[in-house]
């Protein structure tokens, strides 16, 4: 089970709600993903139109993870997190601080600052961050419940481009490592899970697929397969052939 801040979750696939063609397709994809945690951008939430609002299409039983997408500095992120707490009644927040509208790269300085402020306000903070081992150390020491390093630029579907850094982060982390952003196909999720990530978060790859529901299911299977592969303990990689039945086995 995935453990985040004392809570247990069966699925290790977290999903997002952006870029879908309709709220109905989004809802069906969320169900197909089997995810327990779904993140929603607070800037998309409109509590003045509850019947049409994106929140009303999140299946019952899923844990809402409001995110601060659109925040450009720590103060805005904190203000959005408070709105999220007011809207959902929960202390969970996915912290996103992205002042560069082109790359949407997470701001390491403002993210750390916002994390410190939010932890002080007793939020459970899941920060989206660069795949930087030292930054992840700082975020963990600040009291974040997870670290969420990016696999590639958000929305890029480029796969696990930060693999080397993620391996270091996984080896050192005392909190769950959730690989967020950039995973484009199910095998990317499997790869992240095989190297020991605790979970993955996928949005664009599902939302813009020709069949988002099928793609959601595919990511669920790949995430589970990758996790099993990690737990099973892969054999060593060798440059040359190794016979699966040793020729000299009779000597022992």
């Amino acid at each position, binding site marked *: 089970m995935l453990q985040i801040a004392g809570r247990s979750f069966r699925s290790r696939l977290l999903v997002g709600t952006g870029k*879908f063609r309709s709220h109905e397709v989004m809802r069906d994809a969320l169900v197909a993903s089997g995810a327990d945690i779904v993140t929603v951008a607070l800037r998309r939430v409109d509590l003045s139109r509850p019947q049409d609002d994106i929140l009303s299409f999140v299946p019952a039983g899923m844990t809402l993870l409001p995110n601060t997408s659109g925040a450009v500095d720590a103060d805005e992120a904190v203000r959005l997190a408070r709105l999220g707490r007011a809207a959902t009644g929960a202390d969970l927040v996915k912290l996103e601080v992205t*002042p560069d*509208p082109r790359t949407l790269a997470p701001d390491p300085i403002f993210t750390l600052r916002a994390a410190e402020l939010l932890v002080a306000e007793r939020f459970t903070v899941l920060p989206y961050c660069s795949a930087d081992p030292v930054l992840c150390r700082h975020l963990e020491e600040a009291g974040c419940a997870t670290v969420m390093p990016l696999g590639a630029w958000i929305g890029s579907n480029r796969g696990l481009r930060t693999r080397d850094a993620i391996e270091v982060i996984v080896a050192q982390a005392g909190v769950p490592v959730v690989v967020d952003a950039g995973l484009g196909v199910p095998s990317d999720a499997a790869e992240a899970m095989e190297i020991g990530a605790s979970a993955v978060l996928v949005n664009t790859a599902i939302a813009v697929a020709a069949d988002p529901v099928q793609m959601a299911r595919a990511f669920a299977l790949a995430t589970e397969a990758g996790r099993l592969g990690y737990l099973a303990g892969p054999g060593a990689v060798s440059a040359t052939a190794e016979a699966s039945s040793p020729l000299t086995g009779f000597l022992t």
Partner: protein
Amino acid sequence: MSTAPGRFAQHLASGASLVPGLPALLDPGVDLEAMAHQAREVTLQRFGRAVRLFAPLYVSNACLSSCTYCGFSKDLDVARRTLTVEQVVEEAQSLVAQGFRHLLLVSGEHRVEVSADYLVACVVALRQFVPSLSIETQTWSDDTYARLVEAGLEGVVHYQETYDRGRYAETHVAGWKRDYDRRLASTERAAEAGVRRLGIGVLLGLSVDWRADVQTVAEHAAWLQRHYWRTEVTVSLPRIKPSASGFQPLVPVTDAEYVQALCALRLVAPEVGIVLSTREAPALRDGLVRIAVTTMSAGSSTEPGGYLHPGEAQEQFAISDERSPAEVAAMLVAAGYDPVWKDAFALRT
């Protein structure tokens, strides 16, 4: 009196290009269908199956500038009106009731009737119930942009109309807008003041060479992104529409050329929002949503007060897509796109 060239004007004068691939994409011999497919892929990847909706809210048609193509030009004897802040709020409430959460306040160029104080008062009055506010007004050379940002303004829209200095001088006859460099440098001033969304554009049909204007607006977008990395840039390429001015375009831009211009822009600027107004006809708008457009207005009125009290003041230009916001939203849904009414949060409360 004219302003000294700003930094982008100097960059243009240097002849350097940040979008060297664009001329080939604007070539008359391209395979437009193939290009549209490419543009569609790029748009889907970056923006997903979602289109942001907004409404223009005309607050005034008072104007001290004389521009040969515009229905608000000061020389025209037309019904003028500037809304009070209370009337602006009423118009905004009617738009909010239709679903809009992104509003663009539009005016002519009248620094007395549409003063900085007036605009700040509008933003303060609207920010309580409209999460995203932008302006399209005269340009400002003082601290107005900073004051508006402080009040909660998200975006500023300033179209250069044409980057061709000769043609600009012919069509902008009098008033502050006549000053080409003042207008061009205003985007830099707005970005420096912390405006987070900056809309630029050209009025196709104003210049003889629309390709040159598209090339330069793309250059402008790339230059702004390079120099103001926190600023989100959007581009719009309106075509000239009939107005009280009676202006006729020198060289009309055909529908196919228009589609090519937007595809080319998308391919050289994948992360730039492309805005399409109700100037264009329904069939073209519906087609372009599937290719390159990411933000649309709907159900627009271009006269001040026109949502609640139509017919009392001169409109700026005639719109072509007269469908209601709900009808445009339904079209998007049918096309497989999510109409996004709200994609912003109040910057000040």
